[in-house]
């Protein structure tokens, strides 16, 4: 067993877990943050994507102990209080989700993708970079649309801040 302390969604948290505990299980079972999902056993589906120290990470590929000392953001911590994050808002507006199971991972991946491409995104790039997230409901059509729209919104937001 190991003691684990980290920051999750802006709060300092700590707990004890077996050394073999995956970060996703620590988040879900120890911290009750069930928005992060487990959809496969092979780090393929991306339903468990979170941000660790500002980068998108599949939380099933990391042991909980490895995350000790890190700054983690999960889907529960993405919105600014009652205001949805622009990526969340775009998924709703463009019907980028159906059953909702892959959605948290999709949104966390998309947020990271947009942050890494301040120059803007095109459809081919979005599709290529979504390769690690599987959705069975939407055929990705509206997910791609939502990410492109959110990228636009966020770049306008940055432009306003700069001005």
């Amino acid at each position: 067993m190991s003691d684990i302390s980290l920051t999750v969604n802006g709060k300092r948290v700590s707990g004890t877990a077996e050394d073999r505990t995956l970060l996703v299980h620590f988040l879900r079972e120890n911290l009750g943050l069930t928005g992060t999902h487990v959809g496969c056993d092979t780090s393929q589906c991306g339903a468990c994507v979170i941000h660790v120290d500002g980068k998108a990470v599949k939380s099933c590929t990391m042991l909980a102990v490895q995350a000790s000392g890190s700054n983690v953001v999960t889907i529960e911590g993405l919105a600014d209080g009652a205001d949805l994050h622009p990526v969340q808002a775009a998924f709703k507006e463009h019907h980028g989700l159906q059953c909702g199971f892959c959605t948290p991972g999709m949104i966390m991946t998309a947020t990271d993708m947009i942050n890494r491409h301040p120059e803007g995104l095109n459809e081919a790039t979005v599709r290529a970079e979504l390769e690690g997230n599987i959705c069975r409901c939407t055929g990705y059509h509206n997910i791609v649309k939502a990410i492109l729209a959110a990228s636009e919104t966020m770049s306008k937001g940055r432009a306003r801040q700069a001005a």
Partner: protein
Amino acid sequence: MGIEGVGARVARKEDKRFITGAGRYVDDMVVPGMKHAAFVRSPHAHAEIKKIDIKKAQAMPGVIGVLTGEELKADGIGNLICGWMIHSKDGSPMKMGAWSPLAFDRVRYVGDAVVIVVAETKSQARDAAEAVDITYKELKAVVDAPKALERSAPQIHPEAEGNLIFDWELGDSMATNAAIKAAAHVTRMKIVNNRLVPNAMEPRAALGYYDKAEDHYTCWTTSQNPHLARLVMSAFYNVAPENKLRVIAPDVGGGFGSKIYIYPEEIICLWASKKTGVPVKWVADRTESFLTDAHGRDHVSTVEMAFDKDNRITGLKVDTIANLGAYMSLFSSCVPTYLYATLLSGQYDIPAIHANVRAVYTNTAPVDAYRGAGRPEATYLLERTMETAARELGVSPAELRRKNFITSFPHQTPVIMNYDAGDYAASLDAAMTAADYAGFAQRKAAAKAKGKLRGIGMSCYIEACGLAPSAAVGSLGAGIGLWESAEVRVNAAGTIEVLTGSHSHGQGHETTFAQLVNQRFGVPIDSVSIVHGDTDKVQMGMGTYGSRSGAVGMSAIVKALDKVEAKAKKIAAHLLEADEGDIVIENGALKVTGTDRQVPWFQMALAAYTAHNLPDSMEPGLKETAFYDPSNFTFPAGCYVCEVEIDPETGVTEIVQFVAADDFGNIINPMIVEGQVHGGVAQGIGQALLEGTRYDASGQLLTASYMDYTMPRADDLPSFKVSTSNTPCPGNPLGIKGCGEAGAIGSPPAVINAITDAIGITDIAMPASPSTVWAAIRATKH
């Protein structure tokens, strides 16, 4: 249409919880004292169980219980059943082999559950499961359906001699044979429809909780139809009487058919909770899902299509072998029969049809309905054959189809179905225009100039959904009725709850059903709550599959709304001292038509509950219930066009455009309908290009993870061009046909027709993976 009414593109009410991580799926549920289960599953496709030694496992850390099939049997838990009786053509009933939830004497596929271990943690349960020692005597296995019918094949169930479950036929054999004999041209093909794994992103899960004090069970489960689960677990599996069993299907992460059935695990978790005295949760990992979720398709068919000298179809003869896997899943028998052969007329006027279907056991996962269920198999067979016929006859594939379209309605086909409405030429024209079909030759030439092979293919599909008139399906062998129920509760201050037997696992019912209420009463959709998925809250209902929630589920809501409206108008007329016939509902108020006298909706509702001033003899309250049983199936139809570009050096196929032109009848929310088409088309393209379920000859599933089974990913697919040209369905009050399965039904033949067109070959196996395509191109050069 108001901004929130029928036909409006309303953003979904349910989205907020999903986009903020607040969805509640079975694996998110925690109840006090809950422990975790792991199953020990057969590593062999076919074996006798000689000995099960659980002692070592019982002594492992954290272990609470290790339970076997012998104990389950001793406690009277019943075998799993198939709920649809099919009779062979000799009149004998289908041969259903026994399926114990936990195998105790023999295992019949890799993944067959043998032992359940309950422990403090999931890891401890898995560790202990590894320590269960089972001695097997391996038997010869068979995975391929035609091989299972050979004399040398191993016998899988004693009940089904030669592994034949039924040998069934539909249609007129003599008339069809005569048509083929007299034909000017006959197109003959062998058609293989590949086995698929549904792969809802949320793995199946169950949480069983036995309350000793009340002698009552609660089951949280990933179900598309919790009431059906309760009925079957009570009536057939002897888990508990219905009044002692509550089934809750909370947020469910996709189903596509795979979550219709009642599987061994939910039964065992309930039973194990009573045996161990703790609530028991099991969540499948992805490999367990691959091994044990009911698979789809897996048909091998031959087809003969006869034409007269004017290229009109005169007859269609089909012989199909359907692989049902190791056990008969809940609705497995109706998929390759009444959901398949009844659609073999397609969009065409075919005077004579005969289909023969043999269903067989193999040592593979059970096969049941997967998105489309039988209808994709019928469409694939028919539309591949039409395409081949057009090439053989040297005519345009579009015009051959158009010439044979059914153009007047109602139309009685030779295979049971009575099509009520449609305009197949309208969909064909819409698809060809959207795809710029006329400009294809130019695009092909441009592709050739850069060394690419370009092809175009189409598919004109029809399906029967809105399942289904109860008496009709009863006469065909169904053990259930396929009506739906609804209850509309108007609260005292005017907000509304709609309780429905339909279940949403991605379809957006919380929005579309509320739009319907808004259309009728002008109440904002935020004031309308849709309640579903809990047998303690909602009266008996039949659930969601077969694109039935709109055509059947919403029709039940309409019936209940009609009753609410009638009573609301009586109350308003009384309050306004007007004639009830003069009351109209507009903008959230009940008005005396042609006057400015009105009573707001909420005030009428309050009057119903204060009951201070109601018409003589009227009961207080405003709550109505309805059951709706459809009078016919509904018949969505459409035309899909796929254009591909193939790199002959690598065999990689790129879908350069995909057009879907559908007729869904009236539409409640176009945004949601388009989303259903996108998802269905993606699954169909997956079947055609990517998804292949492979067992080796010994029955090991080689494609049991996302490393091995190719799921469609964003970079495998294009954006889709979708449109609708709708003819309202005359058979239900809303004119809805249904849209959930169309995409998966219509798309595979369009893709394969495009690939074979590009390469210049007659057929290619699905999935047409790069290596398969590359080999096919190579073969044309020799």
